[in-house]
């Protein structure tokens, strides 16, 4: 039977959670800078971003690995959440901007002297938080409703998500929607009263990201163990059969799609104060593709895979863009190509395969009559349809 949380998994999650949420920030806060154990502010900030990316990766996998929906536009929801938080942060700059006016600099530059109506409520953090959830969620709901009702599936769904993202990207470049144009929002100063430019605040944001990741991981683990999770995977494997079993697959897909978008939006909202900027470039389909690479490399159809993939690939990118900046896109493309062709279950699959080989070697040849299926990773979780 399918157990949602095995003891081993819980223990591992607890330990890692402890490490990320308690140990790491303490090492940043309480050890002297020269010490070997010290984790620099820069590293904290970097890891905070990685963890937000890991959440984004989980949402991609929730759709792709578990439900068979390859969305090429998760970065859109990530960015929308980021933009909503960005609007709050812009309001928090107050009059400390370049023009020393109580409205954001870019508005002054465009000739505005007072705040446009839709900007006004954003000086309230609860309101901004609500928008972080509502805007991506509403967009996902409308798009998903239309798409799933029309039974749009597979690659066509993917292409449509790409088109939607492209349209949004074009839209956000325009100055007249008053969202910062191609420069976006930046120069944030304060959040909830704390100065964003100081170590302790960034540490707090990092910790929040780690906690959020843990919650999302545990939540998704629980979700995939429920009947809904089973239906999800059934939809991935054989949607027609699901329909014939009397499930309104469209409703299930819509639920998961909206959930994924809201989580992505929240991740984006945590990401933006840490990285200090949000602009339409974040919405480009290239960004969504990166998230997909993280999941593919880490291992789709699992929950740890996206986390591992996000951290691994981003760390690789940080190194590569310093060492071989001209070749990074080639490396990224090559990685995607190789993983799709040769390593469909990613690093997690590789680890499982190695573990299985190790186990088999330890145990010796299989006894006669023993079913091979539980030792070989032969069942290819091919979510591709």
């Amino acid at each position: 039977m399918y157990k949602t949380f095995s003891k081993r998994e819980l223990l591992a999650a607890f330990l890692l959670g402890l490490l990320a949420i308690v140990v790491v920030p303490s090492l940043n806060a309480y050890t002297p800078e020269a010490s070997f154990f010290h984790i620099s502010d820069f590293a904290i900030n970097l890891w905070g971003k990685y963890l937000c990316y890991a959440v984004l990766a989980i949402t991609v996998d929730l759709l792709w690995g578990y439900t068979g929906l390859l969305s090429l536009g998760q970065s859109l929801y990530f960015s929308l959440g980021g933009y909503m938080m960005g609007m709050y942060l812009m309001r928090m700059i107050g009059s400390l901007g370049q023009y020393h006016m109580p409205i954001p600099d870019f508005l002054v530059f465009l000739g505005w002297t007072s705040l446009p109506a839709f900007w006004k409520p954003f000086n309230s953090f609860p309101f901004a938080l609500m928008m972080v959830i509502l805007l991506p969620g509403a967009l996902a709901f409308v798009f998903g409703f239309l798409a799933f009702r029309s039974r749009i599936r597979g690659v066509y769904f993917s292409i449509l998500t790409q088109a939607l993202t492209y349209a949004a990207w074009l839209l956000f470049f325009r100055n007249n929607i008053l969202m910062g144009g191609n420069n976006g929002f930046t120069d944030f100063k304060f959040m909830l009263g704390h100065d964003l430019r100081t170590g302790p605040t960034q540490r707090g944001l990092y910790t929040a990201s780690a906690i959020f990741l843990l919650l999302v991981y545990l939540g998704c683990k629980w979700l995939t163990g429920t009947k809904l999770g089973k239906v999800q995977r059934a939809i991935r494997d054989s949607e027609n059969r699901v329909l014939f079993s009397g499930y309104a697959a469209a409703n299930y897909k819509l639920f998961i799609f909206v959930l994924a978008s809201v989580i992505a939006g929240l991740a984006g909202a945590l990401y933006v104060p840490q990285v200090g900027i949000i602009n339409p470039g974040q919405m480009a389909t290239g960004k969504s593709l990166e998230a997909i690479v993280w999941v593919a490399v880490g291992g789709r159809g699992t929950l740890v895979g996206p986390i591992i993939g996000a951290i691994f690939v981003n760390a690789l990118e940080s190194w590569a863009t310093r060492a071989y900046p001209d070749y990074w896109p080639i490396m990224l493309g090559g990685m995607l190509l190789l993983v799709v062709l040769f390593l469909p279950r990613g690093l997690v699959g590789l680890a499982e395969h190695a573990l299985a080989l190790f186990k088999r070697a330890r145990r010796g040849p299989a006894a006669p009559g023993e079913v091979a299926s539980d030792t070989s990773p032969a069942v290819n979780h091919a979510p591709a349809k």
Partner: protein
Amino acid sequence: MSPRKEFILAAEDVCKTFDGFKAISNLNFYMDEGELRTVIGPNGAGKTTFLDLITGRTKPDTGSILFGAPGVDLIRKSEYEIYRLGIGRKFQTPTVYTDHTVFENLLLSLEGSRGVFNALSSRVTPAQRDRIHEILKTIGLSARVGAKAGSLAHGQKQWLEIGMLLAQNARLLLVDEPAAGMTDEETVKTGELLLSLAGRHSIIVIEHDMVFVRQIATRVTVLHQGTILCEGTVDEVQGNERVIEVYLGRKAKH
């Protein structure tokens, strides 16, 4: 005036054309409750299309398909509404959930709420567990309850699918070529299974294998070019001149 016979399924004047090709033409088909009806016919006769029309996968151009008494016109219903009325279909190629266990396959097919939020909060009740085990016994897969459905043999997958129809408590089972790809033993077992289900359930079986048809059939309908060619017992049908001509392509020797 004699009361109108209560049919489980009554299709009248059904026509369906695909891109100029008349797949079903003026089809009139009647079936009693609890009956096990076998439908045969050469390729392209429209057998699978007929099932598609019943389950709502395609809509007919004209005609009506009434289910149960009083008859509900299936034409107006969507696929999963038809499903919920109690019509289940088993496809030619087994479509079980390969990544789920046998138990889970049956669990997902069990009668009950299909709602999203219910799926979040529901747990497996003892009653459900019992029912699943009961079905497993019927289809003979109790030993493989925890195995991934993808690892089952071909014949076992077919039985699992039939099991899924049972879990759904279908009143009308539409079984498309159940003997396809099975060994002789498996074929016999499948025949026995179907016969045991008749009575409590109404079953339409589409088949090519005449040996299998002999095993299970009481009443046979022959479909040809989208319309009924003849109906009767197996012997009547096999002896019918038109049927021979249609199947063998030449007039029977007098």
